[in-house]
């Protein structure tokens, strides 16, 4: 058991180191620029411009407490979803077809499951920086009102951590699916991130969604995660639908659903791993 535990921690360490090497083997500043500045800022700017174009046309009677801060923060935090999900899920394809070494990791005593988590950490660190840079840019350049003295830092860090665990677990689920799908599963990750973007209330309040999509949003742990993060930053309740739920209750829901996700990821991973080995897909090449 103990032996197992140390193998797992070693796997995690090795995988994060590997992930880091792969991300940064070219020229560090360049990678950093791409993932921490250019991409995040460009994607934030798309939303900001969308907001501006409506505000300028004098039509800005946005619903409820919806405003630029809501949208900007939600989008910033959502970067964790895109990047960590991608960092974990893409590992399968990258190691299988690009480095062609998935089979070697597979046959090593290291558990793939932990290896996947580890590979996500590199992306995670880059994203932490990206989120901070985005928020700083928003405050300084775009003059988005955020009061730094109102932020509940300890809770923000805790909640972010729990949310990230859930996202990584989702990444593992996608990675598991990628083991049996072709190269183009790249779009799968992108699409799933898109789905969560729609039903997590990241960039618009879920009350504008039709009823059934609202219900889906309410079973999505990320909805609670993003709302909590926003609340701990601004000190205000942002989402109307969730306004009757206290911070503590939200926290409880988030923790519980994250645990469920992690549990699910273990089961789903095992299932697809078995399937992949059975069908001999561990070392195939599907790019075309």
């Amino acid at each position, binding site marked *: 058991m103990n032996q197992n535990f140390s193998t797992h921690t070693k796997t995690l360490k090795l995988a994060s180191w590997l992930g880091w090497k792969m991300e940064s083997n070219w020229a560090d500043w360049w990678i950093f620029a791409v993932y921490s500045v250019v991409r995040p800022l460009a994607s934030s700017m798309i939303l900001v411009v969308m907001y501006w174009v409506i505000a300028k046309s004098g039509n800005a009677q946005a619903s409820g407490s919806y405003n630029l801060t809501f949208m900007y923060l939600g989008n910033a935090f959502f970067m964790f979803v895109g990047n960590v999900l991608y960092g974990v899920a893409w590992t399968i394809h990258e190691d299988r077809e690009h480095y062609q070494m998935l089979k070697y990791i597979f046959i090593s005593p290291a558990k793939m499951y932990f290896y996947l988590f580890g590979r996500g950490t590199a992306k995670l660190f880059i994203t932490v920086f990206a989120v901070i840079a985005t928020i700083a840019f928003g405050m300084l350049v775009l003059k988005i009102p955020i009061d730094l003295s109102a932020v509940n830092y300890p809770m923000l860090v805790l909640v972010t951590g729990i949310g990230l665990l859930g996202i990584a677990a989702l990444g593992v689920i996608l990675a598991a699916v990628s083991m049996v799908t072709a190269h183009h599963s790249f779009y799968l990750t992108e*699409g799933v991130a898109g789905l969560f973007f729609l039903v997590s209330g990241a960039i618009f309040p879920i009350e504008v969604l039709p009823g059934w999509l609202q219900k889906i949003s309410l079973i999505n742990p990320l909805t609670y995660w993003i709302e909590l993060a926003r609340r701990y930053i601004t000190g205000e309740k942002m989402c109307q639908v969730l306004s009757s739920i206290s911070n503590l209750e939200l926290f409880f829901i988030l923790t519980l659903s994250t645990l469920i996700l992690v549990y699910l990821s273990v089961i789903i991973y095992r299932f697809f791993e078995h399937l992949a080995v059975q069908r001999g897909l561990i070392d195939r090449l599907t790019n075309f």
Partner: protein
Amino acid sequence: MKTDLKTNLKSIWARAYVRIVGANREPSWILSETVLPLLNTAAFVYVYKALRAPEEYIGFVILGGAMTAYWMNVLWSMASQFYWEKEMGNLELYLIAPISRMSILLGMAIGGIFYATLRAVVVFVFGSLIFRVNFFISGVVELFLIFILTMIALYGMGMFFASLFMLWGREAWHTSNLFQEPIYLLGGFFFPVKTLGYTVAMFASAIPISLGLDGMRQLCFKTGKTLGFLDVKIEILLLLGLSIFYIWISHYALLFMENLGKKQGRLTLKWQ
């Protein structure tokens, strides 16, 4: 000369065939290529809904969301494909063959357009139905012309990028990542490009899709003209210019990069 042309045409078909057959044999892309992009587009629609934006903005987003398919296709399945080909060992076989490198790229493009068009059509048709977009087509011929020219210029630009990817290793990957969002922004996929201001919009017009989208929006929606950037006729001329420019420059860039690669010995280098 004539046999040259024949060989090149055959190569285009052979390379496209791989993708078309591949699409049939690995159908796992259908869900990810159709339903999921639609969801992504919907997210932007709801932003406008939450902002209580005028109705035509919904249509703008649907059109933009549909066109992302082609941009993704150019970026990931054509430009950076050279890098994958190098890793797999096919690039050197293409390079020793007596054909133009553009034929290979064109083959990839034709194969890829098949996917992209499906994605675009699904987003466009279902998006329009679900969000009840009202169209007001004011010029079918112009619309067709703009779309075709946008495609030519866009895929020409893809070929230009591909020349860079011929030499790059993993950095190519990061470069694709680098380009994806900024071009969503500058291309005006989710808002009229005019919003960026005249100077930025002018600069952004180097990306064929920004003029293309702008023109298509002007021709598809009632208020499109007032929110448009330049006159549609001018946009068509500019797109024609861009098409010629990108095809011309990619021809030389491909030659240049190939030669540089041959000089530095990087053309066949793997595992960078």
